């Protein structure tokens, strides 16, 4: 065994795999935590694109919601009691969460109106959302920071009792998947629910039909416009959750541009996951792993040859790992992953009536 690990290339690869396994075992929970905004963002994209609306504004929606949740929570914390309930919920945090959701829905409403009712180019609409959200939240955050607002704190993770987490293997699994804050937990629930509904519910069947061939759906009496609106707004709710994660669950403050491209990585996850909920969140976990791995290498670098090799690489490369993985993944799957046929096409009722 020792001899194999000493071999130049194969040894390095084996050491690398060993280190990877070690990172996953020790940081399983962190992987899921870090993939939460990507996963929820991808689910937002799923809701949009499966009904035929392209949404590249997820990044902006998340950023706006992150600001909304933080700002409202912080204001409320000024005059509301902050006795903590389960999962660290205080009244200000609860109100902040609702504000984050509302912000997501409001921004989605703008996107829905532009891309469904006005039939504007959906890429442009999404781009506008990204630019405006970055500009406005950045400006407001700068204004507010001068009055040094008080923080409302953040939500806390579920704590499993010691006897449960001590069960071998199962305990680790439960701890990895369940010892999270409410927003991460909600993602784990939502993804399963959406996956089941997509294939087994009337809503799912109609959504798939509208995303593939809206006119066919209309001819059997389905209201294409209403269904698209509903799905885009529900998607906004998920973007709102993702945004709130940044400022009231994972962190407790807002910084300009803090979503840092995760909305775009969410789009990559959606594509890599072939426009399914499970696939998207699965892909999000891969990005979460890349993120975690990058952090682990910088904080607890591996020993031995592998450590020497990795040490020679600038640490910024590891910080950029999620983005590098995004590029690699997209280069590998784009073209082979087929979007819903009507994705991005505005629907006009009497367009071809003649």
């Amino acid at each position, binding site marked *: 065994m020792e001899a194999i690990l000493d071999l130049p290339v194969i040894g390095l690869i084996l050491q690398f795999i060993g280190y990877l396994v070690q990172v996953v075992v020790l940081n399983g929970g962190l992987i899921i935590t870090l993939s939460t905004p990507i996963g929820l963002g991808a689910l937002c994209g799923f809701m949009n694109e499966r009904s035929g609306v392209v949404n590249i504004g997820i990044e902006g929606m998340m950023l706006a919601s992150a600001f909304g949740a933080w700002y409202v929570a912080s204001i409320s914390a000024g005059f509301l009691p902050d006795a903590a309930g389960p999962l660290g919920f205080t009244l200000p945090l609860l109100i902040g969460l609702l504000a984050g959701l509302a912000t997501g829905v409001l921004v989605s409403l703008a996107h829905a109106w532009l891309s469904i009712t006005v039939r504007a180019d959906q890429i442009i609409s999404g781009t506008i959302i990204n630019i405006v959200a970055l500009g406005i939240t950045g400006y407001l955050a700068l204004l507010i920071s001068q009055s040094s607002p008080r923080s409302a704190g953040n939500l806390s993770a579920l704590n499993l009792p010691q006897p449960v987490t001590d069960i071998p293997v199962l305990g680790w699994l439960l701890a990895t998947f369940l010892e999270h804050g409410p927003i991460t937990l909600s993602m784990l629930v939502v993804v399963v629910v959406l996956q089941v509904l997509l294939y087994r519910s009337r809503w799912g069947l109609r959504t798939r039909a509208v995303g593939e061939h809206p006119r066919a759906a209309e001819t059997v009496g389905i209201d294409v416009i209403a269904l698209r609106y509903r799905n885009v707004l529900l998607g906004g709710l998920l973007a709102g959750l993702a945004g709130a994660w940044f400022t009231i669950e994972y962190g407790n403050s807002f910084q300009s541009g803090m979503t840092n491209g995760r909305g775009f990585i969410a789009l990559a996850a959606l594509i890599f996951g072939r426009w399914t909920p499970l696939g998207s969140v699965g892909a999000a976990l891969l990005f979460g792993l890349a993120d975690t791995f990058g952090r682990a290498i910088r904080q607890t670098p591996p020993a031995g040859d592998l450590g020497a090799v990795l040490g020679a690489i600038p640490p910024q490369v590891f910080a950029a790992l999620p983005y590098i993985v995004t590029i690699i993944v997209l280069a590998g799957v784009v073209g082979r992953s087929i979007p819903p046929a009507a994705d991005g096409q505005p629907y006009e009722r009497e367009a071809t009536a*003649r």
Partner: protein
Amino acid sequence: MTEPTAPLEQHGPPPALEMRGITKRYPGVLANDGIDLQVHPGEIHALLGENGAGKTTLMNILYGLATPDAGQILLDGEPVSISSPSDAIRRGISMVHQHFMLVPVLSVADNILLGEEPMAGPVFLDRRSAYGRLRDLATFFGWEIDLDAPVGTLSVGWQQRVEILKAVYRNAQILVLDEPTAVLTPQETREIFTMLRRLTTEGYSIIFISHKLYEVLEIANRITVIRRGRVVGERLPSQTDEEDLAQLMVGREVQLTVDRGTSHPGEPRLVVDDLYARDDRGHEVVHGVSLEVRAGEVLGIAGVAGNGQDELVEALVGLRRPSAGRVQLDGHDVTGAGPRDLHQRGMAFVPADRHRFGLVLSYPLTDNLVLTDYFRPPYARGIMRDEDAIRVQAGKAVEQYDIRTPSVDVAAATLSGGNQQKVIVARELDRDLRLLVLDQPTRGLDVGSIEFIHRQAIAKRDAGTAILLVSAELDEVLELSDRIGVMYRGRLVALMDARSATREAVGLLMATGGSQPQKTDTGAA
């Protein structure tokens, strides 16, 4: 001769459907102009008219897809208002659209259930309960159909049946079929006819939209003819014939078939040897096609749409690189040559999709008419265009090819389909040609334009041009070709002399590919 005949006397129960004075105006077009239509219970009522006559608009109004500007709809004598497809469905009206309204990725069952889903509780579908009923319906028609197969994997004939099952599943009383036979082989058409007759015995009233005269005469109990948005006549099949109907439909006497004369084939111009091509998704869809087109003959390729014809044509005209095989034009190897090279070697191409390939819709006619030659004299000198020469050429083409347009400066998009096609024909045919490739040259055109384009093609042939005609319209292939080939699943499964070809024989080859050893073995498996 063209004034409306008096409505036929009716007694007894009120019509299952009556449309009174339906008027619909689109910007610049009066699509329906006071149309009256009566459909009686249990009858097959044919609605006959050219493309653009207003049949589809009328049916979209009936189905709630379009709102009429004036007029009334009565069902069983009761006035009703239909403002959406769900209204229409609720009132027992179902429609099989010309372009199928099926979602390719969904299964047969899901396509049928969509919109009328059986539910177990408020959220979840109850597919199981529906399956029994769907199987019974299929059995009623004597069909074996896999309810779980994605619709996109079915042939068009089977997709048509799924559409009809959709209508029957919804307990429709009135069934509208918009050009149901346009994409079917003669055999499939016959099956659909049998089934329609069967449905009328079950109490269905059927509106059958078509522009194929012999089909209408065969299937309909009554025929209403529409021209330019107005009803121009109502006939019983026993009182009329094809000439009468054609004249009503077009408004003047038409020659239904072009006099093809005899061909005098010369030397081979286009020689295709064992050609393979892939579609956009990388699947091989042309498997070793070999053929020869000689000077002064029309080789027609028939086939149900989607059997590799599009890719074959694209590979021949330089729009798609063949994956293997050889193409020769006048003895020169032109495999993989680009469109401009082929153009200069004397090839012309009239594409099936005139909006995608034939025209730049937003450009004026002047530019569209010189698209193949704009860069060289007389239309350009050095890097400068010669506007005068272009306008002279455009004026000449408009006159010579009878292009109906207010001016040569209007965008191509503003012309009717027939006139757009004439623009392409004018550009492509207005020089000495070695080879002419016609891909569905008359799709969606009116009878007058079809007649014109067919004449032009025959004239080119008689002048010694080799013509390759590809069409999913079997009638067109039979009418123009001197020799006929059939494409089936990417192979040329037969090649025969047009004099020995019958509708039935070619139709069977289109549908099945033929089971006997193939005459033109392409040599590849």
